[in-house]
């Protein structure tokens, strides 16, 4: 009778080991990190851009992470939070976006002079993210005993997600207005110094409703340098 027990227990243990091995292999493949090439690049680009507006944006990126036991048990969905397994982080980030006018697009069609009178038709302003900075002094984080601290790689992933969510929620229409007005204000004194007495700085006003909408969409696709 004892042997029978040993036999049955052995079979159970064997099947359990097989099952465990399968899940651990699965977890390994899921968590494997793809490391990109580390080649250092240096790219030079000649340009002529007048940055006339600067927008400083502040956001606190947060994450609350509780370990959960999820899956199926005989066709029943299981979703149980594991007690004392939470960790939290709040990362303040500062993003700088600048509005610019691409002066290389200006040609004789955009600049009309007539004696001391000048008319400049500016191209549409564009936007570039010039800096994303983590305010490390003010990071707040906590982790329960069974959890490891947040890795720097995880923090960077949150910052990346935070940066993307900022773009979606910015008042781009307002930004376009201020960028246009600031571009004109920046150019005005220069033209004045050059001796022009009557200065007209215009923006593209030949956009119909449909084109304006299309143009607005282009602004949303900002340059991520």
């Amino acid at each position, binding site marked *: 009778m004892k042997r*029978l027990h040993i036999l049955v227990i052995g079979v159970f243990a064997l099947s359990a080991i097989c099952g465990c091995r399968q899940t651990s292999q699965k977890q390994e493949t899921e968590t494997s990190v793809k490391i990109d090439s580390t080649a250092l690049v240096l790219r030079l680009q000649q340009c002529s851009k007048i940055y006339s507006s600067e927008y400083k944006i502040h956001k606190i*990126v947060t994450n609350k992470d509780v370990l959960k036991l999820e899956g199926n048990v005989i066709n029943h969905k299981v979703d149980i939070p594991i007690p004392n397994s939470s960790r939290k982080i709040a990362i303040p980030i500062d993003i700088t976006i600048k509005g610019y006018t691409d002066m290389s697009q200006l040609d004789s069609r955009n600049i009309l002079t007539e004696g001391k009178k*000048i008319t400049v038709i500016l191209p549409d302003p564009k936007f570039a993210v010039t800096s994303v900075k983590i305010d*490390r002094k003010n990071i707040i984080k906590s982790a329960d005993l069974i959890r490891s601290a947040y890795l720097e790689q995880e923090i960077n992933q949150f910052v990346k997600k935070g940066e993307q969510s900022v773009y979606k929620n910015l008042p781009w229409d307002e930004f376009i207005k201020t960028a246009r007005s600031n571009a004109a204000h920046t150019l005005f004194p220069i033209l004045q110094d050059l001796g022009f007495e009557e200065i007209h700085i215009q923006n593209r006003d030949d956009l119909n409703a449909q084109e304006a909408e299309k143009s607005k969409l282009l602004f949303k696709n900002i340059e991520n340098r």
Partner: protein
Amino acid sequence: MRKKIGFTLLLGLICIGLFVWIGYKVKTMLNGNSLISLSITQNSEIEETPIEISKIQRIGEWEFLSIKTEELVDSIKKGFFFDDHMACIYQGTLSLGINMETFNEQWILAQKADSISLLLPPITLLDQDFINEAKTNVFIEEGTWTEKEKEELYQKARKRMQQRACSQENRTIAEKHASAQISHLLRTMGFTKIHLSFRKE
């Protein structure tokens, strides 16, 4: 005695067979899904938080050379048993150009009819903050690192990038391009004889 052992073995084999058969049946009932499939998950999503536009300001920066660069920095902390090692690749774009706020009243040296002579401000780095930390690649992270130590790594990368990008060679490239671009603009405005020079720092 032999009969008893034989009977026990037979019973054991029947039990194993029955167990395997039940397992197989349950598995086919669940259409290939295993009977119990459990995994431990964690939340890697960020929460929705408001954004604050802390500052909108007018600037006047004329960029003539944009330098996109990466910098690999690493740091090792000696430990009792093991050393802590961290290596990050930072990415940033540096802008070289003219800060138009430094234009003074004497920037136009001479102007007569269609000829003009300008003294432009020196080519400088337009913004000291140029690293995009969302693009930082943490290459190696072993051991425990404080936020202060990570900030030091960032500053180290920033300094190195700045030194490399603000070389005399790059300044000369930017100056040449600035001359070409400004001359082109002035020609479009009707000036034919143009002389440009840059103020020394």
